């Protein structure tokens, strides 16, 4: 099947700088795709080209089979966009804003159903300008969904949210998956990408530096895990079996071992500790987080 978004060699030059320096992307139908990157990495420029708001310097781009630079009303009927920052429609309630936008489409979704989808039933008759930040973003999502698009762009949908508002927003985005929508999500929150995305691409300095699933991004699945624990008084790292001493990465009050085979080494550690009759109450085993991978990938060259 034809990909929903297909990008080859996309380049955008501002003056002497390539904000986007030749990227390739492919997004399949029904996928939730997260586009990660630090501020100024080229995320928003890329999204705005895909949304048809900016022209490109070079490269091939199709979105739902159409070049967004020539996107007409038929194409816009099939694409929804939640922009990074947009105020409420002045003077209109939540329901009136949706009535205004539903009039733009030939076959819009039901207004009350869409209000329920984003969980704003209680606020349907409240003026959009009186909503909280999180509620306003949910209104934005509703406005993008009212046309029943196949593809939805979400540009940093939870920036500035408190934790509970983020959970609610994630719930709404999960709901889009149930509806079979394709979602192009940009974010700089790792946990958000990990929670929601089927696939992630990381952009830094205008280039894609890694692409994969949340589990495999940047070789995360083959990166070393860490085992950390504190030894009781009177026991030193010299007392550890040789096999574990070889993994010693850090010994600053708390002992840190790094290993490719965490199960084997936790087993060895447990045997040794049990044989000596000591407990390791703060033992933890940690895979590298997506954040670790991301920070490594997007680190500015010194």
């Amino acid at each position, binding site marked *: 099947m034809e990909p929903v978004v297909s990008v080859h060699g996309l380049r955008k030059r501002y003056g002497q700088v390539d904000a986007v320096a030749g990227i390739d992307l492919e997004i399949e139908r029904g996928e939730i795709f997260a586009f990660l990157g630090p501020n100024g990495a080229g995320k928003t420029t890329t999204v705005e080209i895909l949304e048809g708001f900016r022209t490109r310097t070079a490269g091939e781009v199709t979105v739902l089979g159409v070049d967004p630079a020539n996107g007409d009303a038929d194409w816009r009927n099939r694409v929804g966009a939640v922009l990074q920052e947009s105020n409420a429609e002045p003077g209109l309630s939540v329901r009136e804003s949706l009535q205004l936008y539903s009039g*733009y489409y030939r076959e819009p979704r039901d207004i009350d159903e869409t209000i329920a989808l984003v969980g704003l039933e209680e606020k349907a008759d409240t003026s959009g300008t009186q909503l909280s930040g999180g509620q306003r973003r949910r209104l934005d999502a509703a406005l993008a969904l009212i046309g029943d698009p196949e593809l939805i762009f979400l540009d940093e949908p939870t920036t500035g949210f408190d934790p509970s508002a983020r959970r609610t927003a994630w719930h709404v985005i999960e709901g889009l998956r149930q509806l079979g929508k394709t979602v192009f999500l940009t974010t700089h929150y790792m946990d958000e990408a990990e929670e929601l995305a089927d696939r992630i691409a990381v952009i830094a300095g205008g280039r894609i530096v890694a692409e994969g699933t949340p589990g495999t991004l940047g070789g995360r699945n083959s990166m070393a895990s860490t085992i950390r624990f504190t030894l009781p008084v009177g026991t030193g790292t010299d007392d550890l079996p040789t096999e574990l001493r070889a993994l010693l990465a850090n010994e600053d009050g708390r002992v840190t071992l790094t290993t490719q085979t965490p199960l084997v080494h936790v087993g060895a550690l447990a045997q040794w500790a049990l044989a000596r009759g000591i407990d390791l109450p703060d033992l933890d085993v940690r895979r590298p987080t997506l954040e670790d991978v991301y920070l490594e990938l997007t680190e500015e060259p010194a």
Partner: protein
Amino acid sequence: MKTPAARGPLALILHQSRYDLLGILRNRQARFFTLILPLLFLIIFVGIFGNHVVPPGVKLSTYYVPGLSALAVIASSFVNLVISITAQREGGILKRRRATPVPAWVLIAGRTLTAVTVSLVVVAVLITFGRFVYGVSVRVSALPGVAFTAVVGSITFCVLGYALSTAISNEDAAQPMVQAIMLPLYFISGVFIANSQIPSWLRHIAQVFPVYHLADGLRSAFDPTGHGVGIVWSDIGVLAIWAAIGLAVALTRFSWLPKTASA
């Protein structure tokens, strides 16, 4: 039921205009400056300068109504439009609307229709109030001419508003900018002060700008010695030239995206 988009461009323009109108009516500042202030000025002017009979035998208020009608058209078309369009552009509202299938020209036509509607209503209120409270002389046969001039003036000032908005980078600057442009023009263009009191060199300057011609065109219908439908074609012509200039600027420079956009 079919949506406005499915019923065609005209239905879509009316749809857009209706919600733009709601936005204006629910904005306290817009309500005061466009709907109330022109009438308030009329009451104040009569209060200060009186309403005695002046040559050629009309109440003095007959001179205030056309000037304040021009003010009302400009307030609802130019002042209000520049402020709201700038705020909507910087707030990402125009961009969000452009992300939908609605054509750009429909958004512009809808917003313009709203301004024309508000202009006509406020002018009608001024004339009716003036006629029945202050005994303003109105030639009924010239009322279609007043309406026509008000519509042309409103469209001209909307276009000029779109043009000016391209030079304003944020909404805080919009209000002082439009007032700085309009206040001096109001004083020299026969809106607040009768043209006969203004030195000719100043009047010649005023005649370059559209405010003078809107006020002059509206005034013809209140001239008891006048005749015909009350359209002054020379004034309409100058308004049309300004509209063309505004259109050229707006078409080349208008942007739907915030000026303060991030890369």
